[in-house]
């Protein structure tokens, strides 16, 4: 385990007073805070070698290229991938859109390829497939999750068996959240991938909520594509990663094209580079890449197992305290009752109290920052007829004392 006090000292945003009180940040599922090591590495880029990489042979250009390629290999090692399988994107959304555009660029004349998602996906893993379906390029299948939010493997197996008669392996796709941002449930992805491959489906995992909190081994998982974001794992905004098996990336046409993606051009032709550069058009977010690499190193130093253990312990404590408020006013926790199945996330509703009001009052009373609303999973909330909820999402710098303040404030709010 680690010393939370020591960790917190690394985060400048936590060491300030707002209206005389410290900030209490519980919106990590949206964006995490950044340690000074990450900030320093980005400042170093801007102060010492603010040039473009992969182009120029001068001092600064070479330094940028070296640092970025080091970040790429650090990130690759973080998920047990090869460097050439790591594509830098802006975020998870861009990674998913890259796959949706590259895999389904052409309209098929017969036997539409099938894309299977669940009923609890972030809009970024819903809308790209909705659009493709409207364009007549795919057939979309939605697998309903269980009432407690856990993945329904039986229904998934049924749907996949019924729909495997579409295009062969290179076009059928299962695209799922590895961990849900709504209720923190981690899907049984190893089983899902095994069933998908047996039935000729590729698998794309939205790992935005997994990579910051759990160890990922893409080789062990054998997933075909995996996307995650830097800003949810202590890294800068505007940087993310799409992992893809090298042979698959090689066969995919590029998404965005232009400089950086080509080896040579004539007026009529373009000779594209090999992955990952084929998919990295234009000048890159060099400060972001370097910062992301620094974030990965920070997480490695702390230890992913330690982070998960810390979050589970805190969330279990929060769960028990939250449930003790039920005697004051009925409340509902979304997802499984067992907090161990929800990672570091707890989303809840309080009967008779608007979720936005709870968030506003937590903020104005004790600087507690939570998310309220539909968490970009509007489809699920609309289907269930729920207006919205409050989400508390924890990370390595949160403490038991912060949870106590949250519970005390929540108690006052529900008594109003």
């Amino acid at each position: 385990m680690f010393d939370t006090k020591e960790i917190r000292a690394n985060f400048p945003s936590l060491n300030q007073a707002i209206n005389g009180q410290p900030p209490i940040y519980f919106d990590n599922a949206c964006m995490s805070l950044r340690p000074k090591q990450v900030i320093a590495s980005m400042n170093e880029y801007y102060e010492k070698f603010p040039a473009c990489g992969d182009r120029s042979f001068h001092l600064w250009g070479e330094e940028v290229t070296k640092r970025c390629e080091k970040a790429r290999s650090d990130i690759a090692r973080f998920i047990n991938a090869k460097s050439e399988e790591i594509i830098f994107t802006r975020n998870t959304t861009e990674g998913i859109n890259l796959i949706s555009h590259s895999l389904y660029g052409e309209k098929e004349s017969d036997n539409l390829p099938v894309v299977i998602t669940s009923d609890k996906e972030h809009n970024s893993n819903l809308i790209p497939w909705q659009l493709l379906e409207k364009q007549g390029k795919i057939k979309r299948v939605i697998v309903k999750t269980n009432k407690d939010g856990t993945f329904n493997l039986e229904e998934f197996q049924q749907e996949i068996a019924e729909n495997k008669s579409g295009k062969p392996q290179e076009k059928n796709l299962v695209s799922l959240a590895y961990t849900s941002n709504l209720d923190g449930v981690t899907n049984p992805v190893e089983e899902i991938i095994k069933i998908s491959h047996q039935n000729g489906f590729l698998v794309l995992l939205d790992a935005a909520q997994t990579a910051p909190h759990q160890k990922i081994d893409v080789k062990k998982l054998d997933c075909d594509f995996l996307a995650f974001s830097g800003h949810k794992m202590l890294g800068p905004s505007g940087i993310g990663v799409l992992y893809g098996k090298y042979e698959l990336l090689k066969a995919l046409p590029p998404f965005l094209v232009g400089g950086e993606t080509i080896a040579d051009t004539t007026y009529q032709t373009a000779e594209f580079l090999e992955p990952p550069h084929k998919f990295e058009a234009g000048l890159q977010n060099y400060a972001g890449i370097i910062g992301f690499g620094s974030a990965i190193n920070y997480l490695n130093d702390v230890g992913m197992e330690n982070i998960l253990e810390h979050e589970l312990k805190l969330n279990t404590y929060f769960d028990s305290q939250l449930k003790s408020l039920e005697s004051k006013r009925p409340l509902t926790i979304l997802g499984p009752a067992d907090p161990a199945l929800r990672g570091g996330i707890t989303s809840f509703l309080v009967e008779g109290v608007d979720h936005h009001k709870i968030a506003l009052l937590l903020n104005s009373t004790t600087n507690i920052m939570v998310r309220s609303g539909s968490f970009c999973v509007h489809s699920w909330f609309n289907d269930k007829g729920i207006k919205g909820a409050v989400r508390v999402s924890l990370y390595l710098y949160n403490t038991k004392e912060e949870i106590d303040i949250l519970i005390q404030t929540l108690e006052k709010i529900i008594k109003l």
Partner: protein
Amino acid sequence: MICVIAFLVFAFLGIFSVKYRQLAKEAFACVFKRMTLRKCDTGFEEKIKAQITGRLLKRSTRLAKIAEKLYEPVAWLFVASFFVSLFFVGRGAYYYLKFGTCNPQSPTSCPFYRSATPLEKVLDIYKCPQDPTK
């Protein structure tokens, strides 16, 4: 109705300080929706209420609870008082222009009372000078 009060307050404060002008704009957006008989869904009223309730909650849950119940009635009271006051000010101004006093029933009680009405003074300027030969 809080948005109406908030708009009046922030618009006035916005004359002296830039930081209130954005709030005045937000309040106005809410007022406009209310005036066109639509629900104010900008979240502005909730934000203002939460700011006030939050501060009270730090001191006393009971006080915050009372405030929560009283927002709308007090806001309506302020808005009604505002329009009633506006009516009396307008009426006073009309009486002053017409009679030289804002209270014709008791002219000297008006602090702005003068012997000649402003209208008469204005007409005096345009009177033709009297023919000295007649």
